[in-house]
């Protein structure tokens, strides 16, 4: 009896798939994607609502907290003040940590509807030449903090820039 696969030994028709062009293309695609790949850090937003009509007139029903940020001539953070209270510290992180503690003390820990956290508003008055990263640090300190479990605790959600802020 003749076995079916004996044709192999007899030089029968064997179709060989040409892999080389496919692998070439696949590698070219791979190189393209690797070269164009950009690792982007996750980004998030701090929302602020600033209607133009609010300029020059008292915009808040409640008296807002006023955060003043003063800059050194080189644009670094010099002074952090909440109302009349100045926060001192060795580094700007220290100052913002103290600011955050003060905010928590002032607005309390209630989170329900109508609580101070929900209604509190803050106005930021920053020097013109202050580097923008310090403003974002300040916004981070006043709008929330991350607890030990990694959850965000919201503090003051209504933030705006003072109309006189950033002047000369």
């Amino acid at each position, binding site marked *: 009896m003749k076995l079916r696969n004996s044709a192999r030994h007899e030089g029968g028709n064997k179709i060989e798939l040409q892999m080389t062009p496919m692998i070439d293309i696949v590698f070219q695609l791979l190189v393209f994607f690797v070269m164009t790949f*950009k690792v982007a850090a996750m980004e*998030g937003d701090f929302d*602020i609502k600033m209607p133009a009509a609010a300029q020059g007139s008292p915009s808040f029903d409640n008296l807002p907290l006023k955060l003043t940020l003063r800059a050194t001539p080189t644009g670094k953070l010099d002074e952090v003040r909440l109302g009349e209270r100045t926060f001192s510290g060795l580094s700007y992180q220290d100052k913002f940590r103290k600011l955050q503690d003060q905010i928590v003390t002032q607005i309390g820990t209630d989170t329900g509807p109508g609580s101070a956290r929900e209604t509190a508003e803050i106005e930021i008055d920053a*020097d013109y*030449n202050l580097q*923008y990263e310090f*403003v*974002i*640090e300040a916004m981070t300190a006043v709008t929330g903090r991350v607890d030990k479990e990694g959850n965000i605790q919201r503090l003051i959600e209504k933030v705006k820039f003072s109309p006189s*802020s950033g002047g000369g």
Partner: protein
Amino acid sequence: MRIKKSRRELAEGDMTPMIDMTFQLIAFFMVLINFSQAEQDDKVRLPDSELARPPDAPLVDALTLHVRQSGLTVISNDEHDMEQLRKRMILEKQYTDDPKKVTIIIRGDKAVPTGKVQEVIRLCQDVGFELFALRAKERLNR
């Protein structure tokens, strides 16, 4: 002495695992690739914040402004000084149904003077926009 006849056989490597891996790599990069340039500007180094988390849903009506350290503002790869920016924003306003519902996303360089960012915000306010989002990148470890 008898010499063994060497059998000449072509050694063929098994290509299947390599091709599998390559396709998986291609699929990985294809999924992650982002062709959109409007949301990015290489010259802007965002400040970081531990509260910056990606939003649950993307903003529907949004316009991204990149404020570089030099003070130049970039919209969709077009550079603008303040005067050009005013014209551009007036144009953008005409394209929108209601500018009050459009969020202006500001991607400011971390070293740009705050006053520059506020000038941009004021200009947008003058044109009629009033919702702003200051963008920061997520701080991974402090």
